[in-house]
C-alpha cells in the first residue's frame, strides 16, 4: 500500500513538473522580447537559464511516466491504455511512446534536450545570438506543452483504477519499433535547431561563416537521425508486418519521407552557401520548409486524420489546436522571411552553367518536385474528402510511377555532380573522366536488358546509373590518389589515407553516395525481382520457389512471457538451414499475429509467413494444411547495409574540421587547390 501511494505522488510530481516546464518555456520565449521592449539587455540571459530548467523539469515529468509504466500504475490512464502487468520490462518502458500522448511528450523532451545542447554550445561561440535562438525554441515548446497539458495529457488519472491495463499493440512489441520512433523524432526535432538558427538570422541579421557551418552540422545530424528512423521503420515493417515488403507509400511513411527529401536538398544547397556564398535566402526558405514538414509529419500521424478525416472531428479540440498551431508557425516564420529575407543576399554569382553549384540547383529542383508530389499525393485525398466528401485513393502504384523517374534523374546527377568542379568545369576534361564509368554503366544496363527481357524498363536504367555512379566515385578517388603519388612520391597506402583524411567532408559525402548506390541496387533487386508463392502445405510437403526448395517439417507450441505461439519449421534443402515462422496469440488481446521466419544471405532473403488458415482454429488449421506464404526477395540486405554505410559516411564527414575554425590555414590550402 505504501509503494502504491508513493507512486501516486511520483506521477503528480511529474505532472506538476510538466506544468512548471510549460511556464518556464514561456519565460524562455519571452525573455529576449522583454529585454528589447524594457531596454534591459541583461534580461535576455534569462532564456539561457530557463533552457536548463525546462530540460530538468521535462525530464522529471518523463521519469515519473517511466516510473508509472515500470510499476504498472494503472491509475494513470495512459499507462492503463498502453501497458499491462504481463508486458516485459523493456516494452513497458518503450510503451511510453506507444501512444499519442506519450509520443508527444517524447517529442517535447527531445526538443528540450536539443535546446540544452544548443545553449551549452552557444555560450562561448555565439553568445549574442543565443537568447533569440533559445526563445524560438521556447515558443515551440510552449506550443507543444499546451497541446500535451490541455488536450492530450499523459498524466491524466483514471478512477476507478483498473485491475490490469490494456496492452501495448502486439505489432509494436518488437525491437525495431522500440527504436524507430525515438530515432524519427530525433530527426524531426533535430530540424528545429536549424529552424531556430534561421529565424535568428532573419531577426538579428546574423550572417557569418559560423552560422553556415552550424546550420550544415545540425542539418546533417538531424538528417542522419531521420534517415536512421526511416530505415528502422522499413526494417520493422519488413520483419513484423509480414507482407514481404518494407515500404508501402503509406501516408505515415510519406509523412517522414517529405522532410527527408527537403532535408536532403538542404544538405546539398547549404554546401553551396558554405563554399560559394550564394543561396542564402533559399537556404533559409528550405530550413523553414523542412521543419514545417517535420511538424506536419508529427501532426499527420498523431492527429488521427489519416485513418479518416472524421477522426479529426471526433476530438475537435485537438484537431483545431494542431491546425491553429501549424498555421501560426507557418505564418510567423514565412512572414518574418518575407520581411527580412532580402537582407540575406548572395555575395557571389555563378560563373558557368556547367559547375557544381549549378548542378546543386538542379538537385534542389528535383528534390523539391519529389517532395511536392509526395505532399500532394498524401494530402489531396484528405482535402478532397474533407471539402467535397468525394473519396479517391492515391496508392503505391501512383507513387512508384511518379517518383521512380525523378529518382533516376537524381541518380544521374549524383553520378556526375561530384566530378564537376566548383565555378567552371572544363567540358573536355569532364568528358574524358566520365567515359570509362559511362561505358561500365551502359554495358551493365544493356546486358541486363538483353538477359532479362521481361523486366520493367526502370530496372536496367537504375542499375546502369548506379554502376555509373559507383564507377565515378572509385575512379575519381583513384585519380586523386595517383596525382598525389606522382607529386609527393608517397606509398599507395599513405597517399590514399592522406587524400581521404585530408578532405573528410568530401569523402564522407562520397561514402554516403556509395551507400545510396547500394540501397538503389537493393531496391531494384527486391522491387523488381521478387518471387512470391502461396500454397497450402501439410508437414512433409516440399515447395519450389526461385531455385529454393523448402520442406515443411511441422509445428510445435511455444510459450512466451505474454503470448502463446505455434512455431512452424521449414528446412531449406539447398543449404540445410531452417527458418521458423510463428503465429502468436497475445494473452491480453487474443488477436492472432504472425512472426516472420527469414533466412537471409547477402544475395537474397527467403521470407516465410505462416498465414491464417481459411478454416480451423488459429493454431490448428482444418485438414492439417497450413496456408504458407513464401517470398524470395533478392538483395534486401543491400538496403540495410547501405543504411549503415550512409551513417558511417556521415560520422566520417562530421568528424572533419570545420572550414571556419582555422582561418589561418586558408591561404596555404588555396595554393594547393589551384595547382
Amino acid at each position: 500500500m505504501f509503494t502504491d501511494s508513493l507512486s501516486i505522488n511520483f506521477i503528480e510530481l511529474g505532472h506538476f513538473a510538466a506544468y512548471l516546464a510549460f511556464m518556464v518555456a514561456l519565460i524562455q520565449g519571452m525573455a529576449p522580447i522583454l529585454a528589447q521592449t524594457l531596454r534591459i539587455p541583461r534580461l535576455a540571459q534569462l532564456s539561457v537559464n530557463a533552457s536548463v530548467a525546462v530540460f530538468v523539469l521535462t525530464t522529471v515529468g518523463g521519469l515519473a511516466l517511466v516510473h508509472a509504466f515500470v510499476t504498472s500504475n494503472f491509475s494513470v490512464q495512459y499507462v492503463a491504455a498502453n501497458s499491462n502487468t504481463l508486458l516485459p520490462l523493456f516494452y513497458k518502458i518503450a510503451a511510453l511512446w506507444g501512444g499519442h500522448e506519450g509520443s508527444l511528450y517524447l517529442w517535447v523532451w527531445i526538443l528540450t534536450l536539443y535546446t540544452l545542447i544548443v545553449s551549452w554550445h552557444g555560450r562561448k561561440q555565439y553568445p549574442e545570438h543565443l537568447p533569440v535562438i533559445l526563445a524560438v525554441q521556447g515558443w515551440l515548446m510552449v506550443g507543444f506543452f499546451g497541446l500535451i497539458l490541455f488536450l492530450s495529457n499523459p498524466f491524466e488519472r483514471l478512477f476507478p483504477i483498473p485491475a490490469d491495463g490494456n496492452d501495448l499493440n502486439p505489432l509494436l512489441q518488437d525491437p525495431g519499433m522500440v527504436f524507430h520512433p525515438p530515432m524519427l523524432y530525433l530527426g524531426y526535432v533535430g530540424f528545429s535547431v536549424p529552424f531556430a538558427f534561421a529565424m535568428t538570422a532573419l531577426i538579428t541579421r546574423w550572417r557569418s561563416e559560423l552560422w553556415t557551418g552550424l546550420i550544415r552540422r545540425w542539418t546533417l545530424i538531424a538528417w542522419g537521425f531521420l534517415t536512421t528512423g526511416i530505415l528502422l521503420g522499413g526494417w520493422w515493417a519488413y520483419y513484423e508486418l509480414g507482407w514481404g515488403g518494407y515500404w508501402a507509400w503509406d501516408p505515415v511513411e510519406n509523412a517522414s519521407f517529405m522532410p527527408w527529401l527537403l532535408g536532403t536538398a538542404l544538405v546539398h544547397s547549404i554546401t553551396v552557401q558554405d563554399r560559394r556564398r550564394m543561396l542564402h535566402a533559399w537556404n533559409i526558405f528550405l530550413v523553414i520548409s523542412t521543419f514545417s514538414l517535420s511538424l506536419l509529419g508529427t501532426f499527420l500521424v498523431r492527429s488521427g486524420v489519416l485513418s479518416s478525416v472524421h477522426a479529426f472531428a471526433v476530438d475537435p479540440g485537438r484537431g483545431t489546436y494542431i491546425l491553429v498551431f501549424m498555421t501560426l508557425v507557418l505564418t510567423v516564420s514565412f512572414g518574418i522571411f518575407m520581411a527580412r529575407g532580402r537582407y540575406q543576399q548572395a555575395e557571389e554569382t555563378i560563373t558557368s552553367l556547367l559547375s557544381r553549384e549549378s548542378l546543386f540547383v538542379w538537385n534542389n529542383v528535383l528534390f523539391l518536385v519529389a517532395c511536392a508530389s509526395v505532399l500532394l499525393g498524401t494530402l489531396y485525398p484528405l482535402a478532397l474528402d474533407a471539402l467535397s466528401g468525394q473519396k479517391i485513393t492515391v496508392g503505391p502504384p501512383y507513387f512508384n510511377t511518379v517518383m521512380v523517374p525523378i529518382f533516376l534523374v537524381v541518380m544521374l546527377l549524383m553520378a556526375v555532380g561530384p566530378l564537376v568542379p566548383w565555378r567552371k568545369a572544363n567540358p573536355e576534361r569532364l568528358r574524358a573522366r566520365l567515359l570509362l564509368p559511362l561505358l561500365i554503366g551502359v554495358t551493365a544496363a544493356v546486358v541486363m536488358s538483353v538477359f532479362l527481357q521481361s523486366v520493367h524498363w526502370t530496372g536496367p536504367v537504375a542499375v546502369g546509373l548506379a554502376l555509373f555512379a559507383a564507377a565515378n566515385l572509385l575512379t575519381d578517388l583513384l585519380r586523386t590518389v595517383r596525382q598525389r603519388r606522382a607529386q609527393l612520391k608517397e606509398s599507395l597506402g599513405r597517399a590514399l589515407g592522406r587524400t581521404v583524411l585530408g578532405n573528410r567532408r568530401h569523402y564522407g559525402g562520397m561514402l554516403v553516395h556509395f551507400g545510396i548506390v547500394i540501397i538503389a541496387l537493393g531496391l531494384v533487386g527486391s522491387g523488381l525481382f521478387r518471387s512470391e508463392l502461396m500454397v497450402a502445405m501439410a508437414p512433409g510437403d516440399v515447395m519450389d520457389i526461385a531455385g529454393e526448395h523448402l520442406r515443411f517439417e511441422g509445428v510445435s507450441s511455444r510459450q512466451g512471457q505474454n503470448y502463446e505461439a505455434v512455431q512452424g519449421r521449414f528446412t531449406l534443402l539447398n543449404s540445410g538451414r531452417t527458418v521458423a515462422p510463428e503465429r502468436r496469440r497475445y494473452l491480453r488481446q487474443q488477436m492472432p499475429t504472425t512472426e516472420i521466419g527469414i533466412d537471409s544471405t547477402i544475395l537474397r532473403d527467403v521470407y516465410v509467413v505462416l498465414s491464417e488458415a481459411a478454416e480451423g482454429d488459429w493454431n490448428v488449421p482444418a485438414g492439417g494444411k497450413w496456408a504458407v506464404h513464401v517470398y524470395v526477395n533478392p538483395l534486401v540486405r543491400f538496403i540495410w547495409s547501405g543504411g549503415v554505410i550512409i551513417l558511417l559516411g556521415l560520422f566520417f564527414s562530421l568528424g572533419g574540421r570545420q572550414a571556419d575554425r582555422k582561418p589561418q590555414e586558408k591561404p596555404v590550402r588555396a595554393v594547393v587547390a589551384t595547382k
Partner: protein
Amino acid sequence: MNIMRRLLFLFVFLAMPVFATQVDEDPMDRQVQDIAKDLRCAVCQNQPVAESNSELAHDMRKLIREQLQAGKSREEIMNYFVERYGDYILLNPPSRGAGTVVWLAPVGILLLVGISGYLFLRNRVRPTMPLPPKLSKEDAERVRVARKEAGQ
C-alpha cells in the same frame, strides 16, 4: 497446455505423409493476387486487398476468384468493383474526375520549379570571374613559402 502440445504433436505425426509430396501454387491464386494488389481494402488503413486479413478482403478475394472462374477479364472485374465502391477502391487513382489533378500536378510542378530554376541560374550567371582581391604582404609571403615547399 501440455495436453494441447501432445495433441498437436499427435496431430502433426498423423498428418505426416510417408513420402514428401511436391506442392505447387494454384495458378488461379496468382491471378487473384494480381488483381487484389491494385484494389484497396475498403475497411483497412491503406492496405491492398491482396495483403489484408480482414473479412472483407477475404470476401473480395473470393469474389475475384468466382468472377475469374466465370471467365471475366481483369478489366471487367475492376469495373465491377468500381461500380460498387466508386473510384475509392482503386489504389491507382483514375485519370478522370478528381483523379486528374493527381496525375497532372507533378508535371505542372516539375515545369514550374524547373523553369524557375533555369531562370534563376540564367540571371545569376556572370561568365567573367571577378578579379581576386590583392594579397596582403603577409599572405603573399605565405604563398611564396608554400610554393617553395611544394617544390615550384
